[in-house]
């Protein structure tokens, strides 16, 4: 138990140090921006990993919740006069309610019905956002009012680096907390054997639903943060490709590994930036790198590498 506790604190401490030290080596504000994008993607991925890695359910439309969070902070202040910070909370609540309503009938069934249902949900939300142009600006997107907290206007890539970094720390802390609780154990148990989880009294449908709602709230808050940071939002953030990107981050980094989701986000967000020098071969190389790393690190980057180090340390 002591070892586990230490591991939890160690993870948080290392992450905090990395976030604090990076600004000293960043040569330009462009780097702050890319790092903030990493933190936001990592936040969404950590939430999705609770659903996929812990509870073993797949959501193929997770960008829908990301989009709801993003458009909540765009539409709320612009059209309804809601304070930006309140719009973030309303977005998170809306995402939670939607996840609950979609998940409740679906998660009673056995099998990967959630993947199909969320696929449909993702398409639907993206469609609504692009067609309701009176509210959302349609395919062109819409501007987002700056976030103000207690009179402090949060803006600039430097400031947002710290805000998203803090959000990521809190998100990581919560995900690590969850792991070692009756709820976290119920998630992992139903993933390994649904029938065995049931006979010890785990209400499988209820816990899958909880994991789905948690994942939706994570994505929604990440979406709101991105919209505030960019000051602009377009429907791509809610689209299918973004959903696939989130799933890729989770699988690439390692299912069930909180650190894995952060590493996965680092790879998937920074790699395209680094590969721009290869121009037309950019996407080809990105795909190749993902395929090769999945072949050689089947459990994802973090679990595979930590397993390797443990074996080395023992021998």
């Amino acid at each position: 138990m002591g070892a586990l506790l230490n591991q939890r604190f160690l993870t948080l401490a290392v992450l905090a140090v990395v976030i604090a030290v990076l600004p000293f080596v960043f040569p330009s504000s462009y780097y702050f921006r890319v790092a903030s994008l990493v933190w936001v993607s990592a936040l969404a991925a950590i939430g999705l990993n609770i659903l996929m890695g812990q509870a073993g359910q797949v959501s193929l439309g997770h960008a829908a919740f990301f989009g709801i969070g993003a458009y909540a902070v765009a539409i709320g202040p612009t059209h309804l006069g809601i304070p930006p910070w309140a719009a973030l909370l309303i977005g998170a609540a809306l995402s939670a309610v939607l996840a609950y309503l979609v998940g409740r009938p679906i998660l009673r069934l056995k099998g990967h019905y959630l993947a199909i249902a969320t696929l449909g949900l993702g398409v639907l939300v993206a469609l609504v956002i692009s067609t309701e142009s009176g509210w959302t600006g349609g395919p062109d997107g819409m501007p987002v009012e700056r976030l103000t907290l207690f009179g402090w206007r949060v803006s600039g890539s430097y400031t947002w680096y710290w805000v998203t970094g803090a959000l990521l720390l809190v998100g990581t802390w919560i995900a690590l907390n969850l792991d070692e609780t009756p709820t976290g154990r119920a998630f992992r148990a139903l993933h390994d054997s649904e029938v065995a989880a049931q006979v010890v009294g785990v209400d499988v449908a209820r816990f899958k639903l909880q994991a789905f709602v948690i994942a939706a709230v994570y994505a929604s808050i990440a979406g709101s943060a991105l919209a505030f940071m960019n000051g602009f939002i377009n429907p791509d953030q809610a689209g299918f490709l973004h959903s696939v990107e989130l799933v890729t981050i989770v699988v690439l980094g390692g299912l069930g590994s909180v650190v894995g989701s952060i590493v996965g986000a680092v790879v998937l967000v920074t790699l395209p930036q680094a590969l721009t020098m290869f121009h037309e071969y950019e996407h080809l190389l990105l795909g190749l790198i993902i395929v090769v790393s999945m072949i050689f690190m089947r459990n994802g980057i973090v679990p595979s590498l930590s397993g390797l180090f443990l074996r080395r340390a023992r021998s």
Partner: protein
Amino acid sequence: MTILKATDIGISFGGVKAVDGVSFSVSPGQILSIIGPNGAGKTTLFNIVSGIYAASRGTIHLADEDVTGLSPHKLAARGLSRTFQNLQIFQRMTACENVMVGRHLREKCSLLPALFRTPSVTRQNRETRAAALDLLAYVGLKDVADVPAGSLPYGACKRLEIARALAAEPRVLLLDEPAAGCNAVETEEIDHLIRQVADRGVAVVLVEHDMKLVMKISDRILVLERGRPLAEGTPREVRDDPKVLEAYLGQHGAREAARA
């Protein structure tokens, strides 16, 4: 006093009657064994009683409450626990965590305190782990408490399942072939374990192929053949029943056995 009572249970799969008109009952502290040739419907009967299959006819009463058709987690909440013939352990969790999941119903499980890890969550975790370690010691697995369950040998997994089932503090325990694939020493250990559990007042229903084990520890035996009840009684009565001998050994074998 009866704690679990199944009456006239029947289920069909595509016209095949896998279980047909089976009744049994068991009291606290009693060990009831269900035996029969392969395909007799023993595991199917277990799956019905534990709520995994829905019976097409019959009723099940648990402590005088009609629990027919309740889902497994609701039956677990009413004191029914079971193990599986084909192992159903949580492979990626440690042995200790497996047993801790078994304590699920005894834990307070609210989401918000879990997310923010309040002191009460930490305290409860400590208590659950201590209880799980006690159970692991009870089944002789304390040394491997923090080993991933997926890397444990078969016999250890069998005992781990029993520990997990006991963690729920059941009133009725269904054991599906707990000694299958175990060597003589392991079987002996499981034999002791089951007897101890029953002595604590738990009603045990056992499906087992190891006849030595069954004859030794059972209070009553129910024999099934092709989904139908063939005989019921004490180990001695069942052993001497010509119908049972015939089912196991065939007509010719039964005549030979009778002469011997």
